[in-house]
């Protein structure tokens, strides 16, 4: 077996591990940005999303997203249930750089991300069962269908100027972001968030956990973007590492300055969102950008994310973790940026990117809105007012995250 095949394949497997750890990043970030009385609930959602994503992707998702060349240029394709390795799956015939199994597991790790994004936006008030049903359908059906439109050889890939989304600013992040928006609209704000026309913040309970989450996500992003090279090609891969890092860094600094100017505060939560905004922003064009492009995209994403968080809050859309701002708004920005900066910049590319954003957005928003609406009319979306006040940990899980934390604080006086 050729050394290049082994190296390429191994790198994509390592990337799958890195994407896997991003789910822990989401879990800790969302936990930190919400109240301690809902911690078990947040962790429960984030823990079950990953298994649901992996299993549905094995049962049908992979074949829905990558149905094969028979469905090139179409809106929908399906290559059957289960995983059936084709002839030559593992010897370089299936793909010159990786095996069938590598292809599956790398893509499967991505799949759950879309629902994880929604989890944070509707946190602290959504019924657990309704959310799990939502996850099953959204990750199982919606995500693979829109993914197929571009990555699976569908109609966005077949446009005259092909739609370009390197690692998923639109296909992963905006897909999650649109559903987050639909969910937030239908479920309404947390009790006590908007009172008498005023915004009353509900601070998250652990900035350390949120910070750990963002660093884990940044760490995993090297696999998210780096693995999306789909080989270990030295030039492209190292460039992707550089653009990814610089965009994240510039996002942090962009958010830092913007929160100083706009909200007059050194708000850690905003800088954390800025890092994520920069990462989401670079994701669509990580292999197409130069150093300056990456810094500009990230810096602007950092500015955009702070303004988006404040604006979305003023619109009375209660998003505890800023998921809509980070994943939807910066996802759109990153997708557009492919037409504005770097190797593919052109007017026709901008138009194509807009077509992709609108098509994916319309489908995902309609799918998520319909799904949430049906759940609202059947299972119900929202927990009772008493349960919301008491916390979803007790209401949905009959347990607390920190059962012994309310002991008197110990202080040593000498």
């Amino acid at each position, binding site marked *: 077996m050729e050394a290049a095949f082994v190296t390429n394949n191994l790198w994509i497997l390592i990337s799958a591990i890195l994407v896997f750890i991003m789910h822990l990043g989401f879990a800790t970030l969302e936990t930190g940005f919400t109240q301690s009385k809902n911690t078990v609930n947040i962790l429960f959602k984030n823990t079950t999303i990953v298994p649901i994503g992996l299993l549905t992707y094995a049962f049908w998702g992979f074949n829905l997203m990558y149905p094969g060349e028979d469905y090139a240029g179409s809106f929908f394709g399906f290559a059957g249930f289960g995983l059936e390795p084709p002839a030559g799956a593992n010897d370089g015939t299936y793909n010159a750089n990786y095996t069938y199994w590598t292809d599956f597991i790398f893509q499967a790790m991505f799949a759950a991300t879309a629902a994880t994004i929604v989890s944070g936006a509707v946190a602290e008030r959504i019924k657990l069962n309704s959310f799990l049903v939502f996850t099953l359908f959204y990750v199982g059906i919606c995500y693979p269908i829109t993914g197929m439109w571009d990555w699976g050889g569908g109609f966005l890939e077949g446009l005259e100027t092909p739609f370009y989304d390197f690692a998923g600013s639109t296909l992963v992040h905006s897909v999650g972001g649109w559903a987050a928006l639909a969910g937030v609209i239908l479920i309404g704000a947390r009790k006590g968030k908007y009172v008498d026309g005023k*915004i*009353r*913040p509900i*601070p998250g309970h652990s900035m350390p956990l949120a910070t750990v989450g963002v660093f884990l996500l940044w760490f995993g992003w090297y696999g998210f973007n780096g693995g999306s090279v789909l080989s270990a090609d030295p030039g492209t891969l190292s460039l992707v590492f550089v653009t990814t890092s610089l965009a994240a860094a510039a996002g942090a600094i962009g958010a830092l300055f913007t*929160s100083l100017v*706009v*909200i*007059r*505060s050194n*708000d850690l*939560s*905003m800088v954390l969102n800025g890092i994520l905004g920069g990462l989401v922003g670079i994701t669509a064009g990580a292999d197409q950008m130069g150093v300056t492009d990456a810094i500009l995209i990230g810096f602007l994403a950092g500015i955009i994310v*702070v303004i988006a*968080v*404040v604006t979305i*809050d003023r619109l009375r859309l209660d998003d505890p973790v*800023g998921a809509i701002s980070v994943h939807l708004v910066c996802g759109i920005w990153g997708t557009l940026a492919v037409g504005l900066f770097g190797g593919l910049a052109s007017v026709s590319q901008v138009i194509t990117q807009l077509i992709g954003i609108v098509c994916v957005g319309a489908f995902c928003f309609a799918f998520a809105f319909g799904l949430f609406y049906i759940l609202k009319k059947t299972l119900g979306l929202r927990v009772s007012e008493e349960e919301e006040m008491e916390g979803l940990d007790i209401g949905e899980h009959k347990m607390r995250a920190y059962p012994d934390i309310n002991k008197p*604080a110990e202080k040593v*006086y000498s």
Partner: protein
Amino acid sequence: MKKVEAIIRTSKFEEVTEALAEVGVTFMSFYEVKGHGLEKEYQTYRGATYDVGYIPRTKLEIVVSDSFLEPTLETILRIAKTGKVGDGKIFVTHLEEVYRIRTGEQGSEAL
């Protein structure tokens, strides 16, 4: 005998207790309290400023015989003062009776 209850800034706690020890006041209880007053504490979170709704302070509870009252009050007034709104308050009440549990002693003997 008097009971002196003093609500002071938590940041002044160590200075005040050390100064009280110097004038001979070594018996006291203290606890963390939350309350309202003239001062308001504002915090910001993700672009919105809000009134936290309470101010955290430390409350001292000191029982002294009448001769110790003056130095106790003088010490707290001097040390706990910063001159800014929110320095706290002192309440003095007359005490009927004091007992030492170990010996059953009463009054000033028990202090």
